[in-house]
């Protein structure tokens, strides 16, 4: 988390034409991307959360396969937020590269991603075959809890970015 190691990267990104355009030539870009980032997070948490709640054992009687139809919408929300997040990062890399909250946010993004992949590769087929009224096994509940906790942690560290910065010179 030491700042100097990342300085050359930050300087390089800031020096690119794209960064300059984002930063100085499109005045409404930042509020637009923030608005989209908030809409994307609501869509992601709502739809992924619905599936997670089903995996936790709520809404018994709803086939898991049906509940999963909302998951592509979570991916739409994620794509919107990845794109807008990259625009923030390219515009003002110094606000993020050395910010502890940013790295914790990335950590929980990885946890959420690995957890989802683990679900797909190891649990999905077996759980999809369950009867709609069956009790969810513990493994499903753990996956769902990890997912919910990590998405809210992503939101938490994202929103706390300006306040958890150990290097306040970065000026978030």
């Amino acid at each position: 988390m030491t700042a100097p190691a990342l300085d050359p990267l930050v300087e390089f990104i800031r020096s690119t034409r794209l960064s300059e355009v984002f930063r100085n030539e499109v005045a409404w870009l930042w509020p637009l991307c923030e608005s989209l980032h908030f809409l994307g997070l609501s869509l992601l948490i709502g739809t992924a959360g619905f599936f997670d709640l089903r995996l936790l054992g709520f809404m018994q009687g709803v086939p898991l396969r049906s509940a999963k139809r909302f998951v592509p919408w979570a991916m739409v929300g994620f794509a919107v937020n990845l794109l807008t997040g990259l625009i923030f990062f390219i515009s003002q890399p110094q606000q993020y590269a050395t910010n502890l909250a940013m790295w914790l946010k990335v950590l929980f993004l990885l946890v959420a991603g690995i957890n989802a992949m683990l679900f797909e590769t190891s649990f999905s087929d077996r759980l999809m075959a369950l009867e709609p009224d069956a009790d969810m096994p513990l493994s499903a509940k753990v996956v769902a809890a990890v997912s919910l906790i990590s998405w809210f942690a992503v939101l938490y560290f994202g929103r706390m970015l300006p306040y958890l910065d150990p290097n306040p010179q970065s000026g978030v």
Partner: protein
Amino acid sequence: MQFFIWLQDTPFAHWVASDPSLLAYPTILTLHTVGMAIVVGTCVVMDLRLLGIAGDVPLSALGRAPRLVWTGFFINAATGLALFTTDAEHKAVQTVFFVKLSLIFLALVVYGRLRTLVFRTASPQLSPISGEVRALAAVSLLLWTGATVAGRLMAYLL
């Protein structure tokens, strides 16, 4: 106006605005975003379902959605009031803030109407979903989008 000036000068408002603790302004602001995700996320799931997305999810699955919506709403009413006190004199006359409040009010009216239309029957089995319900679901998505954008623009528009 005197009231808002007084409100902004209460010890509570000063604590929220200026206390160095992460539990003051930063946590209250973050909880406001958590509440938004719960309210808007839940309404969006309901609206998408009513528009025909995930059509094989039984509508009864959304029977407990109001608990989430009202929990999120309560969090945001409380955190919103706390945030309001820190800048009451200005927020009381900020146009985009009233736009946001109006859009939230309208979105909740639409939400209430949808609950009545779709979920008041013992076992909601609406197929096909009526044109009125679809239209209201689309309006709901637009209103929550507008409320979210207006909330974000409060930091930019005076």
